[in-house]
């Protein structure tokens, strides 16, 4: 009887002790950060920039190691995150609207419920650009040209089912005109085709236009407020077009993360975001930042999925 009591007491002690260590000690081993793209890409640079700050704010001398799993435009990496153990030792980068759009236009082994949404860090709004020598240098002229003949305006962009494509669909609705999509598999080739005058207009992101301001006309930016990266570009809202859209890049973990681990991670992301050195590093790599933490990020994801669904149902792209 006494033995049994001791055993029970010991068991309590051990389990209680374990629970409290888990609470106090996360992280106690290396954290893998899965990037669905090759080293050196925009998403990879974001992950490598943030890793040392997470290490600092998570404490415990933890190391955050970036693991590149490129392929299928990020889908291989995102799938690996969704299927990892939800213990806080596997995080991953997450790109919107791509990650959600792939659940519609391809077979995907994950859905919106497969993740714990940690933090969206980058919000890169779309811009409309035209060649420098083009007559179309304002939204009014663009709408006029687009309405003159259906499909007369050719639009260079990076791919179908991405943020630029969804933006074009919004533009098409708002201006009540049809455009011809020319997907170049990448923003840089699209931008070059535009600079060479091979297409009428282009849809890229503000981070991709900053270094080329003298070579292109920028007609507007699809954000609520003007971008600190380019204060002189007017928003579409200012010009009377209700257009807000962009590419989002953030971080997720597998669904079912323990609450204490989740709150530690959220706190670390918040502190990282508030660190002026981190902001400076992001600025240097040309990433416009805008934080959406936890539930806020989850809502953002749901919003992006709704948008993708609406476009997929009305204008399927494949």
């Amino acid at each position: 009887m006494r033995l049994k009591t001791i055993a029970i007491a010991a068991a309590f002690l051990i389990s209680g002790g374990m629970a409290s260590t888990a609470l106090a000690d996360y992280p106690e081993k290396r954290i893998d950060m899965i990037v669905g793209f090759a080293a050196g890409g925009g998403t990879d640079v974001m992950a490598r920039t943030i890793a040392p700050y997470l290490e600092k704010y998570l404490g415990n001398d933890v190391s955050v190691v970036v693991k590149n799993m490129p392929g299928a435009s990020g889908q291989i990496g995102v799938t690996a995150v969704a299927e990892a153990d939800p213990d806080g030792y596997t995080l991953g980068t997450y790109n919107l609207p791509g990650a959600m759009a792939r659940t519609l236009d391809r077979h995907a082994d994950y859905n919106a419920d497969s993740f714990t949404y940690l933090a969206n860090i980058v919000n890169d709004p779309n811009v409309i650009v035209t060649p420098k020598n083009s007559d179309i240098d304002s939204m009014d002229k663009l709408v006029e040209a687009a309405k003159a003949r259906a499909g007369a305006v050719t639009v260079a962009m990076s791919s179908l089912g991405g943020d630029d494509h969804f933006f074009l669909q919004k533009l098409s609705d708002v201006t009540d005109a049809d455009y011809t999509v020319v997907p170049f598999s990448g923003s840089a080739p699209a931008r070059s085709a535009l600079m060479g005058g091979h297409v009428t207009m282009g849809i890229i992101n503000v981070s991709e236009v900053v270094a080329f301001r003298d070579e292109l006309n920028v007609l507007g930016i699809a954000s609520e407020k003007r971008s600190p990266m380019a204060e002189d570009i007017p928003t579409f809202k200012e010009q009377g077009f209700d257009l807000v859209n962009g590419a989002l890049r953030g971080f997720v973990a597998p669904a079912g993360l323990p609450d204490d681990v989740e709150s530690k991670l959220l706190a670390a992301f918040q502190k990282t975001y508030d660190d002026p050195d981190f902001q400076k590093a992001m600025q240097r790599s040309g990433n416009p930042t805008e934080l959406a933490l936890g539930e806020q990020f989850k809502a953002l994801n749901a919003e992006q999925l709704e948008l993708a669904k609406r476009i997929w149902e009305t204008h399927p792209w494949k």
Partner: protein
Amino acid sequence: MYGNLIDALPAVLSLGNLAAVVIGVIAGICVGALPGLSATMAISVLIPFTFGMDPLVALGMMAGIYNGAMYGGSIPAVLLRIPGTPAAVATSFDGYPMAQQGRGGYALQVAVVSSAIGGIVSALVLMLLAPPLAKVTLLFGPTEIFWVAVFGMSAIVFLLGGDVLKGLISAAFGVFVSLVGADTITGAERYTFGHLELLDGINIVVLLVGLYALPPAIGLLEEVRDFDTQNTGRLNTISIWKAMPGMLKYWKTWVRSSVIGVFVGILPGAGGSMAAFLSYNEARRASKNPEEWGKGEPEGVAASETSNNADTAAALIPALTLGIPGTAVAAVMLGGLLIHGLQPGPMLFRDNPGIVFGFMWQFLFAAVLLIFLGGALATNSFAQVLRLPRPLLGAIIIALVFIGVYSINGRMFDVYLMLGFGLIGYFMDKLKFPLPPVVLGLILGGFAEQNLRLALRIGGGDWSILAASPTAKILIAMILLVVLAPLFSRWLRARKTHRANA
């Protein structure tokens, strides 16, 4: 602008930065010489490590690796008929026959000198003509790039070999492989059978290694009792400095191939292998004895090696000025720049002249270093490899290609794919199907398809867009000239003999 060039020089000459270039060149030669490892892969492995480095050290190593690998690829291409990199395929056409005739050492010397010359020309062009050449790049929209791909395809004709039907089947197989993956326009999956690994298409290195490296490696394993390697192990060379004056007669090929390499370099998407094929073809057409080509003509090695190095720095012109890489390696290098906060574009030259122009100097130094490092390494170290017992050599190569192919994306799927291609390559070899058309078909097939479809989208489905711009018209005229000239000269010859007989 030229003042910036001079200003950037002192930093490049500092010990650390110079050492980075030297290490890069040596590493590049080794990586290029090992089948299955490529410059693209070496640089992507390096990039994460450069995160904390000084930008010039990191970029110097990359410039060294790029130049070194382009030459290194020719070493196994010459000695074993296994191209170390995709760009060395054309080098094996005449390099390997030369090695069989006991002139392998000379072939490597021609390769290293030609590589250095191509690299120097390319670096100078990058230093002096980058902004105007970027404007040339802009002239090439989808329509024009489509015609460049067709022009490249017309080079297939000479690669078809003796049996035209077998050659065409090989080329068609290459084009078929290029179809695998997500459709570049709509994203529809083609021949992926639900495998995410196939969505991005089949990596050229996987195909190249499977077709080119596995069958000869298996062949080496079959030579169990052949330990008499004395003959092939000796390269019969004289010092590279004594050999160089004799090479001056290739100057026309050097000039022509440099121009072709630079031109292909500034076109987005084309790469070193296309440059090498094109310039081999052009050099052969200009030669007085084209029937000797493919049987051990040193000029063939010179043509291919000059242009695949002339492609290197030139490929960075569109990469640095427009953000569009001319080759896969340049694409990875862009990543290396990005990681240091260096965004491509006109602002890059204004905001970071020290780094951009320093990087250009490093390309120049890397090219010059090739003669010293490559010359010594090629004639001394790598030839020793041939003294190894053949089965051992075969086993080493097989182990290397497994590691190399696995490390492209870090997955076994690519290794299985390579084994599949190895099987196909083994039978193609036995049944005498030529391999080069497969490589060219894979490179140009996807290139031509994507750009044709983009062009037609821009033209609203009207095919006349294909001949609309002046650049397109010039390209069409060039293609007609290349295709029709041999037919015309044959007709002339036939008429002459007919007259003589009559």
